[in-house]
């Protein structure tokens, strides 16, 4: 019979050590008045009806950011989801599965005004969606774009190093960049592929226009290149936002364009009408061949999403949408609703 201690799995012991180390670090840190570590994230309840079958997904996405001095930041995000989906076939009732996963866990060292060095598990910087719009408290629609798997190297996160920062920042424009190298890892929580790549963006401040290019190269198995571009535009003095991306891989390519708007005409953004946010996303995926596995649909697919979000007070948001998806494997309607609460508070009261 094994001893009680040895009966604890290695992963449990590792997780315990990590949590205790982080807790000890947090408890011993003497943060300044504005630099208390924060706990943020979103709590959401989502429903998803596809082809007449409804699934339910209570979700928590916690985010921790803990500065150590003025140049070092430890940050991480995780996702906890419990999915209740109907049993297949003629079996009545629901089955449920759960998922707990690290999204990223990284250390950021601000080496100079133009350079930040990142080490650890980081979000793959290809396009904009993965880094900017995956938090549930930010995204306008529940589902990611059809081309979401292109350029993200399967796991959407890398394990290794990254450099990033603002190369040039002027009143009229700014240029930012990021470049990374990731090693291969089969660890469940830090899964990644050996790859490299980067992104550069130009932002014109007067016209509120951002254009950027991305590049990624898979360095294991069949080595492949991925290219991407993005255009974001938020016209000045409006609450209109246009976001778009195009991505090209050796096996598939496609684009998405998303627009959302809130009116200020009836008492401003905080009026009950101003809190309504219509959203539209159009997207197409073109399959070039099926020789590789790139985590996107295996056939040409088109989809139009019509969303209607409502921004409640106190950081709460209702997200609803209807989508029609067209593919040779079958057309279908997708109805989605959800409510998300965003939390943001210090881990303890600072000095």
């Amino acid at each position, binding site marked *: 019979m094994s001893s009680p201690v040895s009966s604890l799995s290695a992963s449990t012991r590792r997780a315990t050590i990590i949590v205790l180390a982080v807790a000890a670090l947090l408890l011993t840190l003497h943060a300044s008045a504005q630099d208390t570590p924060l706990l943020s994230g979103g709590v959401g309840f989502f429903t998803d009806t596809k082809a007449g079958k409804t699934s339910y997904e209570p979700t928590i996405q916690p985010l921790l950011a803990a500065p150590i001095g003025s140049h070092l930041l430890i940050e991480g995000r995780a996702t906890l989801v419990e999915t209740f989906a109907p049993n297949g076939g003629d079996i009545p009732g629901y089955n449920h599965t759960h998922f707990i996963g690290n999204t990223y866990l990284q250390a950021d060292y*601000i080496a100079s005004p133009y350079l*930040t060095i990142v080490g650890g598990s980081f979000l793959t910087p290809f396009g904009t969606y993965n880094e900017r719009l995956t938090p549930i408290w930010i995204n306008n629609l529940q589902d990611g774009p059809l081309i979401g798997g292109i350029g993200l190297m399967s796991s959407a996160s890398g394990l290794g190093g990254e450099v990033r920062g603002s190369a040039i920042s002027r009143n009229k424009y700014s240029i930012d960049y990021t470049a990374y190298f990731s090693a291969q890892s089969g660890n469940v929580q830090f899964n990644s592929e050996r790859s490299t790549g980067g992104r550069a963006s130009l932002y014109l401040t007067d016209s509120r226009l951002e254009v950027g290019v991305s590049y990624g190269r898979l360095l294991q198995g069949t080595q492949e290149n991925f290219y991407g571009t993005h255009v974001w535009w938020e016209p000045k003095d409006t609450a209109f936002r246009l976001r778009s991306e195009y991505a090209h891989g050796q096996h598939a390519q496609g684009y998405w364009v998303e627009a959302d708007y809130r009116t200020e005409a009836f008492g401003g953004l905080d009026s009950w009408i101003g809190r309504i946010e219509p959203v539209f996303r159009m997207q197409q995926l073109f399959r070039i061949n099926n020789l590789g596995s790139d985590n996107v649909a295996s056939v040409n697919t088109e989809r139009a999403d019509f969303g209607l979000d409502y921004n409640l007070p106190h950081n709460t948001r209702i997200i609803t949408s209807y989508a029609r998806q067209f593919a040779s494997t079958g057309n279908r309607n997708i109805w989605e609703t959800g409510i998300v609460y965003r939390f943001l508070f210090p881990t*303890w009261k600072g000095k």
Partner: protein
Amino acid sequence: MSQSISIRSLVSIVLLSALTTPLLALQTQAPTQAPAPAATPAKQNTKVSSHKSGYGSDGERIFAQQCSRCHTAPDGFSPHISGTIVLHMRVRASLSQHDEQELLHFLNP
């Protein structure tokens, strides 16, 4: 086997306690934090992001140009984390050092 379970339970309870204690403490202190001066500007920032012309400061302009591209401003937050938020967003959004300082000044005038 039962010992193993009890040790796991003990570890779980300790970890749960360690994580919830600061939250409970925070909850207790919430009334004193609520009227903190910097919490009010943070709420006002939501209105800044309502895209009115003419910004009062560089920080206000930077907030409207950079932050609201991705998200709306939170309704309010403790002044104790304003530096952490700005540092976090400097990395996430690749803000310049100048932008970071102006934003911090805007959030904590």
